[in-house]
C-alpha cells in the first residue's frame, strides 16, 4: 500500500509545475472578495464608515482575477461618493490594485481618465493622476495609451494646486514620448516627434513655477526623460543654471543634477560668459557652476555638488586645477600657501623648520583689482569641500578628488597635498577614505620628503584600520630619495614597537617598499645591517621583529640589485636562509654568488617559478586523466593509483599556490573514491552478519567520512560549477547507499530499514530534480544505473533494494572529475590570539572577559553570514559566536578580515588551562535537512575530542585551532 502511494507521489512530483499551490488558493477566495467589499460599501452609512472599510480592505491582498471586479465596484462607489477623503482613498486603491501581479490595467484606463473630468477636489485629482502614472508604468508597451495619458497630463498642468501640477509633470517625465523607433510608420513618427518637442519645452516652462515643489518636480521629470533615453535639448541648460540660485534646496539639488546631465550631453558646446565677450566649453562652464555649489548653504546640495564634480572628467585641466586654488592674501599682499612654502623649502634643500619667524611673510603687493574674492568659476571648490563642516561633504569631496585624479596625472600631483592634509581630519572615516584614495592614485605620484613625513605621522594613529590602510598605501607609494626610505623604515619600526600586532602588515609593507626602490635602499644597506668596514658587529637577534623587518626590506631590494649581497655579512646570509624558509612569502629567492648551498636551495625553490604554472596545470590534468582510466572500482591496482595520485596532488597544492584549491579539491574527491572503494572491497560482504561486526565499524566510519568530505567539497570551495556540484552530490549519494546497505546488514528492525529506504529514494529523486541538466554527463555512473532501475526500486521490498544497491555500487564506474576554471579553497588564519602566550588571561568567574580575535579569510563568500567563531572549553563545552557584520572588513578581492571580540566566561578553575578557538564555516543546503544534520561537520582535527560535543550543526571548521590560556578565578567574597 505504502509502495503504491509512493509511486503515485513520485509520478506527481515529476510533472506538476511549482506554481500549482498558490493558484489553487486564488480561485477559492475570488468571489468572496469583491462581493464582500460591495456589501461593505453599501452598508456604509457615512463617509467615515466607508473610509474604515476601504482601509481594512487595503490591508488584504487581492488576486489578479478579481481585481477588475473590485475596480468596478470601487468606481461605482466613487461616482456616488461626495466625501473627498473617501474618493481619495478609492483613487489610491485603484493605483494599488493596478500594481497587482498578473493584472493588466488597460481595462480600467478609460474609467480612470473619465473620473478625472468630473473631479473638483485637487487632492483627489492629484491622487487620480498618481493612479494613472502607475497604470502607465504598468503598461509600457502601449504608445496609444501613453499618448492619451500625456494629453491628460497636459490638460491638468494648469491646475492651481501644486500637487496636481507635480503629478502631471511626473506623468510627463515617466511617459512622455522618447524618440520614436526608426521603423515606425510616418504619421506615428510625426506625432511622436511633435510630442517630443512638446514634452521638453512644456516641462521646462514649469522651471519657473511659483511653487518650489513644482520646480523640483519639473527638474526631476526632465531627468527622468533623460534616464529614459531622450536627448535633452541644450536650451534647457540656461534655465537649469538659473535654478542653481533658487531659494529652495531641493530645487538647487535637482538643478545640479540637471546641469551635470547637460554637461555630459554637450560637453563640447560653446557657451558665452556673461558680462564678457569670451566663450568657453559647456562642460567647463557647468563645472564652474557646480563648483560654486560646493559652498552652498545647504549641506545636501554641497554633497550633491561635490559628488557630481567627480564624474566630470571631460573638464579642461586648466579649470580642474583651479578647484585646488585658493589665492591667499594677507593685508592685500599675496601670500604663498603653506604647501607652496613647503615645496620651495624642499627644492632649496632645506627641511622646513616651521620656526623661522615670518617665513610666511607676504611678498609682493597685490593689485586690488585682480583679487577676486568670490572666485568666479571653479576656484577653490575642493578647498572648500575638504574643509566643510559636514563630514559627508568632505568624504564626497575626497571621492571626487580621487575620480578626477585617476584620470589626470597632473591633477593627481596637485591634489596630493590636500589629500595628505586630510590625514589629519577629525573623523576617522574621512582619514581612512583619504588614505584609500591616495593609494588608488599613487601610481601617478611620487611623495616628497615633507609629504611623506606627514603621511608617516599617521602611523602612530591608535586606530588599527588607519594604520593598516597606511601600510597598504606605503606598499604602493613611490618615494624620491633614500632619506625617504630611511624615514619610512624608522617610522615603521616605531610603529612595530608601539603596536606589535601590526607585525605582518609592517613586514609586508617593507617587502614592497624594498622591491620598489632597490637603488634607494642600496646606499643604506651598511647602515641598516650595521656592518662596519673593519669591525665585526654583534650578530643581531634573529627573533627581533624589527630586525626581521629590516632584513625583509633589504632582501627584497637585493632581488633586483645584484650588487647588494656583496655588502652582506656572514650572518646575514645565514639569516637569509632561515627567513627564506620560515617567511617565504616575504623573502624572495636571491641569487647569492659564492654560496653554493643557498644557491642550490634557491634553484629548487625557483624551479616552479612563475613560468611553470602551465606545467603544473598540465601535471594536474594528466593525473586526473590517469585516474580516469580506472574503469571499475574493483580493478586491480586502482587503489594504488588513487593513493598515489592523491599524494601527488596534495604535494602539488603545496608547491603551486595558484593551483592549491584545484589540487586540494581533486585530492579530496579522489580520497572519497578511495574510501568508497576500500569499504566496498571489505571482505565483510561475503561473511555472515554476526561475524563481521568489526569490519562493519570501519565501513560505517568510511561512509560517514565520505559524507563529511562531500560537504567540505561542496561548501569549502568557491568557483564550482553545477557539474562539479552534481559530481559531489553523486558521491554523497553513493555514501548514503553504502550507509543503507550497512544498516540493512547490521540492524534487523524492518521498520527502520523501510524508513531509510524511503529516505534514500527521496534523495535520489531530489538529485534527479536538481541536476536534470547534468544527467547526460553522468553516463554509466551509479545514479545513471539507479535511475534506470527506479520504477523497479520504488516498488520492491527493502531487502531487494539493498541487494540492488550493493551490486550497483560495486559495478558502477569512477566518475571522471572535470576541473572548473578557477577553484579556490576557503581558508582562514587566526592571526591573533597567537597561541604563544604563557600568561593566562585571568578573570573572575561568572564575569566575562573579551578576547580579541583577528583573522584573515580567503575566498569566503558572504562571510557575514557563514563565518562563526567556536570556543571549546576544556570540559568539552563549546560556544559558537556569530561575529557582527561590522566586524568584517574587505581589504582586497576574495579576502576578508575578521576583527572581533569574543566573550569568554566560565566557572572557577583551580589552575589555568587552555581553551581552543577556531573559525567555522556554516553552511546550509536543502539537502542538509534531508539527512540527519547532527552527525555532520566534524572532521579529523576534532577526532581527539568527544564527537558529541565537538559536532556543530552544519559547520565546517576551516582554520587551525588556536589555544588560549585562561584562568577564571573564583569571585572574592
Amino acid at each position, binding site marked *: 500500500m505504502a509502495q503504491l502511494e509512493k509511486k503515485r507521489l513520485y509520478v506527481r512530483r515529476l510533472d506538476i509545475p511549482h506554481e500549482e499551490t498558490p493558484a489553487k488558493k486564488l480561485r477559492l477566495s475570488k468571489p468572496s472578495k469583491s462581493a464582500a467589499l460591495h456589501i461593505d460599501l453599501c452598508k456604509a452609512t457615512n463617509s467615515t464608515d466607508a473610509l474604515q472599510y476601504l482601509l481594512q480592505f487595503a490591508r488584504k491582498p487581492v488576486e489578479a482575477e478579481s481585481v477588475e471586479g473590485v475596480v468596478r465596484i470601487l468606481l461605482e462607489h466613487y461616482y456616488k461618493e461626495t466625501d473627498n477623503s473617501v474618493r481619495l482613498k478609492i483613487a489610491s486603491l485603484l493605483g494599488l490594485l493596478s500594481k497587482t501581479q498578473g493584472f493588466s490595467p488597460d481595462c480600467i484606463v478609460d474609467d480612470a481618465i473619465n473620473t478625472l473630468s468630473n473631479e473638483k477636489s485637487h487632492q483627489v485629482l492629484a491622487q487620480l493622476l498618481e493612479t494613472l502614472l502607475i497604470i502607465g508604468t504598468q503598461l509600457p508597451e502601449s504608445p496609444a495609451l501613453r499618448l492619451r495619458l500625456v494629453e491628460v497630463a497636459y490638460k491638468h498642468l*494648469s491646475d*492651481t494646486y501644486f500637487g496636481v501640477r507635480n503629478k502631471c509633470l511626473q506623468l510627463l517625465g515617466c511617459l512622455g514620448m522618447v524618440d520614436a523607433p526608426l521603423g515606425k510608420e510616418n504619421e506615428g513618427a510625426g506625432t511622436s516627434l511633435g510630442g517630443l518637442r512638446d514634452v521638453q519645452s512644456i516641462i521646462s516652462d514649469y522651471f*519657473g513655477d*511659483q511653487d518650489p515643489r513644482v520646480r523640483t518636480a519639473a527638474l526631476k521629470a526632465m531627468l527622468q526623460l533623460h534616464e529614459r533615453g531622450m536627448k535633452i535639448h541644450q536650451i534647457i541648460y540656461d534655465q537649469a543654471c538659473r535654478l542653481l540660485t533658487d*531659494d529652495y534646496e531641493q530645487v538647487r539639488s535637482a538643478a545640479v543634477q540637471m546641469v551635470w546631465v547637460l554637461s555630459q550631453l554637450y560637453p563640447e558646446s560653446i557657451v558665452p560668459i556673461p558680462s564678457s565677450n569670451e566663450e568657453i566649453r559647456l562642460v567647463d562652464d557647468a563645472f564652474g557652476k557646480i563648483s560654486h555649489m560646493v*559652498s552652498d*548653504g545647504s549641506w545636501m546640495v554641497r554633497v550633491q555638488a561635490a559628488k557630481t564634480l567627480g564624474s566630470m572628467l571631460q573638464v579642461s585641466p586648466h579649470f580642474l586645477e583651479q578647484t585646488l586654488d*585658493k*589665492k*591667499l*592674501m*594677507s*593685508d*592685500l599682499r599675496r*601670500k604663498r*600657501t*603653506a*604647501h607652496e612654502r613647503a615645496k620651495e623649502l624642499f627644492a632649496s634643500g632645506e627641511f622646513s623648520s*616651521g*620656526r623661522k*619667524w615670518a617665513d610666511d611673510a607676504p611678498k609682493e603687493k597685490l593689485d*586690488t583689482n585682480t*583679487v577676486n*574674492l*568670490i*572666485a568666479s568659476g571653479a576656484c*577653490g571648490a575642493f*578647498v572648500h569641500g*575638504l*574643509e*566643510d*563642516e*559636514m*563630514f559627508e561633504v568632505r568624504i564626497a569631496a575626497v571621492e571626487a578628488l580621487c575620480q578626477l585624479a585617476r584620470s589626470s596625472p597632473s591633477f593627481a600631483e596637485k591634489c596630493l597635498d*590636500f589629500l595628505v*592634509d*586630510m590625514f*589629519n*581630519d*577629525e*573623523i576617522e572615516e574621512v582619514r581612512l577614505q583619504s588614505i584609500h584614495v591616495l593609494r588608488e592614485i599613487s601610481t601617478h605620484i611620487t611623495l616628497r620628503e615633507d609629504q611623506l613625513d*606627514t603621511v608617516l*605621522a599617521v602611523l*602612530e*594613529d*591608535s586606530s588599527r584600520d588607519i594604520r593598516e590602510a597606511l601600510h597598504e598605501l606605503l606598499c604602493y607609494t613611490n618615494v624620491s630619495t633614500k632619506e625617504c626610505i630611511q624615514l619610512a623604515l624608522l617610522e615603521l619600526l616605531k610603529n612595530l614597537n*608601539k603596536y606589535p600586532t601590526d607585525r605582518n602588515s609592517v613586514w609586508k609593507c617593507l617587502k614592497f617598499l624594498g622591491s620598489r626602490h632597490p637603488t634607494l635602499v642600496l646606499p643604506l644597506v651598511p647602515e641598516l645591517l650595521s656592518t662596519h668596514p673593519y669591525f665585526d658587529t654583534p650578530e643581531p637577534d634573529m627573533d627581533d621583529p624589527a630586525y626581521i623587518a629590516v632584513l625583509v626590506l633589504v632582501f627584497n631590494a637585493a632581488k633586483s640589485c645584484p650588487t647588494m649581497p656583496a655588502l652582506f655579512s656572514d650572518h646575514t646570509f645565514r639569516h637569509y636562509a632561515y627567513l627564506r624558509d620560515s617567511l617565504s612569502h616575504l623573502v624572495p629567492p636571491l641569487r647569492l654568488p659564492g654560496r653554493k648551498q643557498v644557491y642550490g636551495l634557491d634553484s629548487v625553490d625557483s624551479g616552479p617559478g612563475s613560468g611553470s604554472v602551465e606545467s603544473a596545470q598540465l601535471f594536474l590534468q594528466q593525473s586526473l586523466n590517469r585516474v580516469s582510466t580506472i574503469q571499475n572500482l574493483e580493478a586491480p591496482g586502482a587503489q594504488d593509483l588513487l593513493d598515489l595520485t592523491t599524494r601527488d596532488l596534495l604535494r602539488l597544492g603545496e608547491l603551486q599556490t595558484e593551483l592549491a584549491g584545484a589540487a586540494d579539491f581533486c585530492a579530496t574527491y579522489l580520497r572519497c573514491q578511495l574510501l568508497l572503494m576500500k569499504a566496498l572491497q571489505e571482505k565483510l560482504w561475503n561473511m555472515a552478519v554476526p561475524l563481521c561486526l568489526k569490519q562493519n565499524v570501519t565501513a560505517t566510519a568510511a561512509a560517514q567520512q565520505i559524507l563529511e568530505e562531500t560537504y567540505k567539497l561542496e561548501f569549502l570551495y568557491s568557483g564550482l560549477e553545477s557539474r562539479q556540484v552534481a559530481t559531489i552530490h553523486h558521491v554523497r549519494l553513493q555514501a548514503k547507499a553504502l550507509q543503507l546497505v550497512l544498516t540493512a546488514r547490521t540492524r534487523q528492525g524492518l521498520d527502520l530499514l523501510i524508513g531509510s529506504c524511503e529516505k534514500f529514494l527521496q534523495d535520489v529523486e531530489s538529485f534527479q530534480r536538481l541536476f536534470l541538466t547534468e544527467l547526460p554527463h553522468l553516463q554509466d555512473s551509479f545514479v545513471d544505473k539507479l535511475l534506470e532501475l527506479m520504477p523497479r526500486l520504488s516498488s520492491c521490498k527493502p531487502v531487494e533494494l539493498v541487494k540492488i544497491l550493493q551490486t550497483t555500487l560495486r559495478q558502477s564506474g569512477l566518475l571522471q572529475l572535470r576541473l572548473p576554471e578557477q577553484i579556490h579553497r576557503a581558508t582562514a588564519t587566526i592571526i591573533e590570539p597567537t597561541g604563544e602566550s604563557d600568561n593566562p588571561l585571568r578573570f573572575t568567574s561568572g564575569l566575562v572577559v573579551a578576547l580579541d580575535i583577528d583573522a584573515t579569510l580567503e575566498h569566503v563568500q558572504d562571510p557575514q553570514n557563514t563565518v562563526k567563531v567556536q570556543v571549546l572549553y576544556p570540559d568539552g563545552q563549546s560556544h559558537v559566536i556569530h561575529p557582527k557584520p561590522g566586524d568584517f572588513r574587505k581589504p582586497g578581492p576574495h579576502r576578508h578580515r575578521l576583527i572581533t571580540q569574543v566573550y569568554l566566561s566560565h566557572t572557577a578553575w583551580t589552575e589555568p588551562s587552555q581553551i581552543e578557538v577556531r573559525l567555522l564555516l556554516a553552511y546550509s543546503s536543502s539537502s542538509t535537512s534531508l539527512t540527519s544534520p547532527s552527525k555532520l561537520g566534524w572532521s579529523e582535527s576534532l577526532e581527539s575530542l568527544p564527537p558529541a560535543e565537538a559536532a556543530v550543526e552544519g559547520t565546517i571548521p576551516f582554520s587551525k585551532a588556536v589555544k588560549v590560556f585562561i584562568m577564571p578565578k573564583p569571585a572574592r567574597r
Partner: protein
Amino acid sequence: MPEIKVTPLGAGQDVGRSCILVSIGGKNIMLDCGMHMGYNDDRRFPDFSYITQNGRLTDFLDCLIISHFHLDHCGALPYMSEMVGYDGPIYMTHPTKAICPILLEDFRKITVDKKGETNFFTSQMIKDCMKKVIPLNLHQTVQVDDELEIKAYYAGHVLGAAMVHIKVGSESVVYTGDYNMTPDRHLGAAWIDKCRPDILISESTYATTIRDSKRCRERDFLKKVHESIERGGKVLIPVFALGRAQELCILLETFWERMNLKAPIYFSTGLTEKANHYYKLFITWTNQKIRKTFVQRNMFEFKHIKAFDRSYADNPGPMVVFATPGMLHAGQSLQIFKKWAGNEKNMVIMPGYCVQGTIGHKILNGQRKLEMEGRATLDVKLQVEYMSFSAHADAKGIMQLIRMAEPRNMLLVHGEAVKMEFLKGKIEQEFSIDCYMPANGETTTVTTNPSVPVDISLNLLKREMALGGPLPDPKKPRTMHGTLIMKENSLKLVSSEQALKELGLNEHQLRFTCHVQLQDPHSDADTLHRIYTHLKSVLKGYTIQHLPDGTVIVESIVIKVSSSAEDSNTKVLLLSWSYQVKTWTLFLERFTLIYNGVLPGG
C-alpha cells in the same frame, strides 16, 4: 520713504568695543555693548550719552542684543544696565547667558582687585544685569513687542555666538556679530538662510585676508609646539579663557593622545573648569564630530590638560601653558611671559588678533625690548609665533555670507578702516549693492522700499482670475479692479460693490452724454428705427436692443432721438454711455460711421 539708521558707538572702523545703534521702523535697538581692551579710561566703554543726555536709556531703546560673550561685545553690559540705567529687555543665547557673567566677573576682578580701580561695577551689578537677560534659541523667532521680532542664527566663532535677524514689518537688518565661515575643531560654520535683509551689518576683522586651509594651520601649530617641547622649551599660549582656548585644547589633547606625549599641558585660572563645564553642557552648539561622539566621550573632558598653578611656571622641563588673557595685556599670561621671555628655548604662540597698544601687538611687530611698568625694560628672547587661529571670517567668508543672505545694502563694522575700504570696493563690484562703513558716531541712513501688505478679498481675486488667463504668471504684473480701503492701520482690497456696502455709500454712476444733430425728415420713431436697423447691419456681434420706450441700447450705450423744438427736420440724437465703457472712443468712431450710413445724402 522709510529709513533705517545705523550708528556705531563702537566698532565703527575700529576693532573692540562693539556697540551699534539701529533705528528701524520706529524702533531703536542696540547691538552689543562691548568694551575696549586697549584703554583703561572712559574710552573703554561706549559713549552712552550719545543716546540720551539725562533721561533713562530705557525710554530710548526697545531692546539690547548681545551676539556673544567676548568682552569686546558684552564688557560694558553691567555698566550700561546698572550704572547708566537700562531696564529694557536684553537678549542673548543660552550659552552666552551662562558664560558671560563668568567673564564679566573675571574682568571686574582684574580691574578692581588688581588695578585698584574704583567706581566700577560690582558683582551684584553683574547679577542684577543678568536678571534682565532673556535667552534666545537658534532659529527661534522672538517677538520683542508687537512689531519688532528677532531671530538668532548660528555664527560659529565661539560657543553660543549668534547672528541676529531683526525685523520690523517688512524691513529687516542682520547683525552678524563675530562669525566664522570655516568650521574648526569644536564649532561649526556660520549659516544663515536667504533672508534678504535691507542691511547686513557684518564684522570685517579680516577684510583683506584670505586664509590658508585650516588643516595647514593646525599642522603648523602642532609642529611648532611639538618641536619646542622636544627641545625642552616651554610654550606659552595666551588665550582668552573661552573660545579659541577650547579649540586649541582639543587640538593639543588629541595630538598628545595620538603621539603619546608626556609633557604636561596646563590651563591657567580657575575659570577653565567652570567654562569647560558649560562647553560640556552645550553640546548642541558644537560641531558635527563632537555632537556625534559625546555619548562615548565628551571631547571637553580632557585627559592631558590640567589646571595650572602659579608655582608650576618655574618647574624645569618642557610644558605647555594656556594662560589668560589673550593679548598679553594683563593677568597671568603677562606674568608668565615676563618669566619666560628671557630664554630663547621658550616660545610664545599668539593664536589670535591683538589690539593695538597691547604687549601682544608689540611683540608681534617684532619689538624685542619692552617697557614695563615702573620704567623697567624686558628683553624678549623667546620665540614669538603667530598662528592665525582667530575664528573670524576671512574676506572670502564674508563674501560667502553675503551670497547666502543676499542683502540689499552692506555695512561693515569691527575692522580697520583701510581694510574695510578695500572690501567695500570688492563688495560693490561683485554684488553691485551699496556698502557703508561708518565711523563711530557717524550715522548711516538707508532708505528702504518696504512692500505694504494688503489683504485682498478672495471673491475679488477669484473673479479677476476668471477674467484673466489660466494662471497668474509670477513674473508679469497684472492690473485688476478693486477698491483699496484704509481703515484702522490696515489695508484691504475689495470689490467696489463691497466697498460701497462697507462704507455705507451710494453708488454714483458717471455717464457721458453727447448730442448729435441730424437732418432727417422722418418722425422720431422712424429715425430711431432706421438707426436701429442700420446699427444692426453695421455692428454685428453686439447686442442691440430697441426698447419700446423709444431708446436703442447698444451694449451699455443708450441712444435716444428727439426732434428739436425749432425744426422738426432736425433731430437731436442723445448718446449716453457709462464710465465703464472703456472703448468709448471706438464707439464714437463707429457712430460716425452710423451717422454717415443713416444719412446717405449727408
